[in-house]
């Protein structure tokens, strides 16, 4: 009985260990906790990628020039770059990070989200290419009515 238990436990552990990468989730809040507590965009990018050096091309970012409601600002971004991760930051709230996408083999990198900003500021989208380089797009917008005090 003991041995059977031991065997099933070991097999279970092995089965867990060989879960293919395609179904393994990457929670960047656990992997890189400092990204989420950083107060400036530069610090957050540095904590995420180790550098802030980025090329200003290859990323398309669309937001309204003036957002009437800071509680739900539509942010669209896309890229054709073969990406590993895509991260969104802004400088209007107490912390900088908004979200990080772990790109998979099925991804078509065309996204649309709604974010909160307490005041006018700049949104930065960073695409980490599989070539190891960072690509960046920035957009400054005016927020007429701040979103829920950040």
């Amino acid at each position, binding site marked *: 009985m003991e041995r059977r238990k031991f065997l099933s436990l070991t097999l279970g552990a092995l089965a867990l260990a060989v879960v293919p990468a395609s179904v393994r989730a990457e929670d960047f809040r656990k992997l890189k906790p400092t990204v*989420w507590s950083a107060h400036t965009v530069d610090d957050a990018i540095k904590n995420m990628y180790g550098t802030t050096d980025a090329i200003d091309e290859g990323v398309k970012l669309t937001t309204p020039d003036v957002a009437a409601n800071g509680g739900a600002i539509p942010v669209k971004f896309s890229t054709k770059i073969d990406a590993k991760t895509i991260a969104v930051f802004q400088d209007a709230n*107490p912390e900088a990070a908004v979200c990080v996408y*772990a790109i998979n083999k099925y991804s*078509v990198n065309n996204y649309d*989200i709604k974010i*909160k900003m307490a005041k006018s500021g700049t949104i930065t989208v960073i695409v980490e290419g599989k070539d190891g380089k960072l690509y960046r797009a920035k957009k400054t917008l005016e927020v007429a009515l701040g979103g829920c005090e*950040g």
Partner: protein
Amino acid sequence: MKVKPKLRKGIVKVKAMAKNEMITYNQAEKKFGDREKADFITHLTGTVNGETVIDISTSQFLSKNPIFKFEFKGDNFKKGDKLLMNWVSRLGKTGKGKGKIK
């Protein structure tokens, strides 16, 4: 959560909405007098037939009841397959939803 995937020309376009207040640290302090009561979605994933098609780590700065629009390649999937989505919040709440690819 609501999940609506549509397959067109080999690409599945998804519109998904999660129900969550997305309470920031500042809002928690104002509302409950305790920053630690901040509660928002921190991680969201979606799978079709066991394959991950979306994986997002998120912060408190997504809007209340956030909407996620994203796309993925549909070559390996067909209409009728189900997209299952799950999220987990900072204080451990979870939510899920599924939608048939149309």
